[in-house]
């Protein structure tokens, strides 16, 4: 899985925001904001990764159990798919 190239994550005054670029700009229906863990996962997905690797990265970075990390990854990936941000 990988983040599409026409989206960029930026920190604007302490808020993580997903900025649409190119033609995606005109599909703006509200700005997508991420929390710290969302931004953390985004950076992995930008390079391209798997759900398993993302769970592993979360377990290393945050003090959470595997079940919580898996749920967080599933929800995040689902949200990105709904927003048409991920390429498989």
């Amino acid at each position: 899985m990988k983040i599409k190239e026409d989206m960029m994550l930026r920190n604007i005054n302490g808020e993580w925001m997903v900025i649409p670029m190119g033609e995606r700009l005109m599909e703006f229906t509200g700005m997508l904001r991420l929390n710290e863990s969302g931004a953390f996962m985004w950076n992995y997905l930008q390079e391209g990764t798997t759900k398993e690797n993302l769970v592993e990265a979360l377990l290393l970075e945050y003090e959470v159990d595997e079940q919580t990390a898996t749920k967080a990854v599933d929800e995040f990936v689902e949200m990105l798919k709904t927003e048409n941000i991920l390429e498989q």
Partner: protein
Amino acid sequence: MEQRRIEEIAELQIKNKEWQRFMEHISDNAVKNGTISHLTMELTALCTLQCKMCYVRLDKKQADQIGTMRTAKEWIDMARQFRDAGGLTVLLTGGEAMMRPDFLEIYEAVSKMGLFVTVFTNGTTITDEVIEMFKKRPPVLIGLTLYGASEETYEKVAGVRSFQKALNGLDRLLSLPKINIDVRFTACTLNYKDYKPLQNLMSERGIVLSYDIGNMASVRGATSKARKLRLSKEQEMEIKSHLEKVSAPILDAIHKKDSESAEIISEAEKENVKEDPLETRRLHCRAAAFGVYIAFDGRMYPCDTFSEPYFTEPFKEGFVAAYKRLQGIAKEILVPESCAKCIHIMECGPCAARLIAEKEACKREGVSCGFEERR
């Protein structure tokens, strides 16, 4: 205008309102944190038109005397520094920004940085290359200004018969599938009667004109006749009431579609009204509080309306250092004392920058601002 188009414009305006709310959130945060969210880059002070009321345009000789135009590489680097400082929106303007042969190089680089780019134009520079670029990378908004509804009016106002060229430019932009255009009419005594035929032409295209009747006193070495070409209050009202009548069905459609948006529009308008402009002589606005203006020669001002000595030099100091220093300068800016006491302050102000420009023009031209005579 067709009902279907009215509904479309209403939808678009509701969407634009959402966008505006988001941008207000961003600028509020920038003000709160002392950072920045907006940058205007005046890529050139030269223009394809020579409008008699333009407050910023310079001819080549004037521009050369004032300073050197910055290169594409320098502008791109400046935009990058702004982005790295947390900036989000960039306006590319002029003069006529798109008359620069390297405009598209700057535009493409800036729009790839994760910045939202707006472009201002007079419509006479819309080439095949511009259309191709905007297809691939549409700006978040294009502000296109028209100056009349005939070649004769253009000749009177802008010195060149460029009306059809500008209209063709607009039509080419309108042919793009995803484009957000604000078409503006800048009125003065030479062209104001064109508001009706021009709005008729726009209605055929499903557009309601915005209008500008400010006619600012010229700044930063520009030598327009803006002050002599100002409309009377009656002429201003004539334009305003006609365009309000044209836009009334759209406002009704917005109310029907989204009462919340309509309420927010009126709240936003209310917020912009200063109850007492004499309360303080300091800047009331957010110039240098969340955004700045960099002129063609690289000087950074709180907004487009300021001249010397209210500037810093980002190409020498670096963007962030120049911005911080400018914020300090802006805090000390005061409305001229005589303007602060003037009963006509609401006619030319209460913007401190406009009042300072007006005062400077009074000194330069040796005549008063004329607001008293206009009443």
